[in-house]
């Protein structure tokens, strides 16, 4: 067996352990919860290493990518897997992200399973092809390491890249930790490729905050992943000589509307498929996933809604406030597209005040994108809870426990009033 030089961005430690089967006897049998099969491999990986490891175990037919901070390491690690013969993947080192997505589209259309990874301006450059991927119903899977879209130039984390493609017809899963980034990627193809769905899917995680932080993780064995993900057998594909077809032709007044409706229907179908796949995943790993995670929300008076790594910090704050007798709770959105509007509205219906934290400013003077979706979902489902928008963490501004606590303290005041005052707020913004 070949040993890879598995290097971390800030070390030269050889991390061959995670792939060397001879060392997998280091498995800790009790680290997963009550799954049917509780064997898993205790490891420590950065979020980027976790994503690259998932891709290695998925072993897709094609990976096409162009390096961009902070997702650069994903194709970097993956190309070493290719070079060392650990995957069968055709790795296409393209000259731009536009070409990366184009290559994925070509590969998927031909009948292959394709993956890519990018961030921020890389995704911006893909934008044209991102819509074409979903419009052609190609279940491409992308690892999106969230970063602020320039300008001015910034390489750090926020969610402006993801929010820019929220209406592009991609399924969007968000990940609090390296573990969730890994798990979401392992579930991705079964969701995206499902006959009722056939949509591309992106797995988001926070740039640097999780992508470059080494943390504990539980990995699955290669064989288990292979079995779980399964082989890809598309019904229709270009390289099928028995079914000559054209893909991506002109689609004018007579049909585009119907095709867009079909995409929207597929997105609706995705909700149940996501839950079904999660159920199977839980059987294997003991780790359960829903459309969103409710943390001490059931009896909460006040609640924060947020996505990705901030949810972890919020959980700690919720626990600290609970010790003081304050009934705080968290709703962490995992599935942002399709947006579980009705389910979220229901889950928040009993609380007295809600804060929705957006790591991207829509610059519309009317709150962030997640806020708009949550409040629209509540209104449509006849749920009336005072809700405030907080824009936070822009361009990598660190978000502390104290700041999250201040949001809950704001909510305590809000919950005593009938109507929310100044609903469009900022967290961690320097005013001087």
């Amino acid at each position, binding site marked *: 067996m070949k040993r890879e030089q598995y290097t971390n961005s800030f*070390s*030269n*430690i*050889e991390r061959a352990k995670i792939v060397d089967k001879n060392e997998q006897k280091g498995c800790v049998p009790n680290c997963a919860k009550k799954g049917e099969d509780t064997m898993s491999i205790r490891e420590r990986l950065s979020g980027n290493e976790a994503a690259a490891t998932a891709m290695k175990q998925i072993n897709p037919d094609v990976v096409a990518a162009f390096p961009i901070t902070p997702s650069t390491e994903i194709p970097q690690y993956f190309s070493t897997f290719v070079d060392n013969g650990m995957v069968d993947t055709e790795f296409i080192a393209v000259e731009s992200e536009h070409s990366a997505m184009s290559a994925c589209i070509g590969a998927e259309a031909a009948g292959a399973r394709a993956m890519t990874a990018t961030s921020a301006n890389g995704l911006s450059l893909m934008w044209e092809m991102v819509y074409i991927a979903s419009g052609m119903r190609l279940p491409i899977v992308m690892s999106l390491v969230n970063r602020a879209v320039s300008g001015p130039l910034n390489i750090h984390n926020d969610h402006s890249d993801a929010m820019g493609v929220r209406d592009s017809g991609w399924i969007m899963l968000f990940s609090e930790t390296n573990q969730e980034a890994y798990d979401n990627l392992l579930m991705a193809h079964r969701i995206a490729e499902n006959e009722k769905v056939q949509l591309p899917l992106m797995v988001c995680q926070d740039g640097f905050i999780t992508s*470059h932080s*080494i*943390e504990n993780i539980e990995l699955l064995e290669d064989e288990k992943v292979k079995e779980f993900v399964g082989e890809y057998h598309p019904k229709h594909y270009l390289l099928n000589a028995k079914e000559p077809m054209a893909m991506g032709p002109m689609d004018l007044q007579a049909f585009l509307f119907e095709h867009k409706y079909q995409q929207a229907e597929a997105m609706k179908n995705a909700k149940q498929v996501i839950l079904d796949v999660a159920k199977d995943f839980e059987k294997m790993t003991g780790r359960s996933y829903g459309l969103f995670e409710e943390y001490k929300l059931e009896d909460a008076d006040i609640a924060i809604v947020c996505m990705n790594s901030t949810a972890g*910090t919020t959980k700690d704050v919720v626990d600290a406030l609970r010790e003081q007798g304050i009934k705080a709770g968290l709703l962490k959105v995992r599935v942002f597209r399709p947006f579980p509007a009705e389910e979220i509205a229901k889950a928040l219906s009993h609380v007295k005040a809600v804060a929705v934290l957006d790591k991207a400013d829509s610059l519309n003077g009317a709150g962030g994108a997640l806020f708009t979706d949550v409040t629209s979902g509540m209104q449509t489902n006849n749920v009336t809870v005072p809700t405030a928008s907080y824009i936070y963490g822009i361009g990598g501004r660190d978000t*502390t426990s104290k700041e999250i606590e201040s949001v809950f303290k704001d909510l305590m005041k809000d919950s005593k009033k009938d109507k929310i005052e100044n609903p469009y707020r900022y967290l961690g913004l320097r005013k001087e």
Partner: protein
Amino acid sequence: MSNMIEIRWHGRGGQGAKTASLLLADAAFNTGKYIQGFPEYGPERMGAPITAYNRISDTQIRIHSNIYEPDYVVVVDDTLLESVDVTAGLKKEGAIVINTTKDGEQLKKLLKGYEGKVYTIDARKVSMETLGKYFPNTPMLAAIVKVSGIMKEDEFVKDMEGSFKHKFAKKPEVIDGNMKALKMALEEVKQVS
């Protein structure tokens, strides 16, 4: 989370503070702990001040923010003492470990009245005597393990031997030197106030 230990590293780009924080995370991981090891990325360049962080805990670590009230601070380059507020937020029950030849009196002035324990080690001397080159990160790693008591010294030494064998599989000649640096640093680190 009362059992969580938070460590902040101050160094200059190229000195290996980030690598040291990663090695510490690795060593603690190998003793069964939950760990975080992450750098604060800025405009990276050789010689510029950099910060890296460690969290080490017996239970799962959920917080994702920088560390503002560390239990321990490690200073890999004492020229930073004049330009960076290295004791900012440092708990007085904690300690600071500095790579320096300065004595307690000299440091007192530079540390702006920090009330906690101050430890020093001459990592340059350790590194030059054992490796023949200046790599301060291995001695500083040993020093913080000793000062913080995160793990037993013998466990640490044993674990690092395995790590070095793995890391330097292609350069086995440096394994001995690094092990000597590690052991010497465990002896050399001393409390000065």
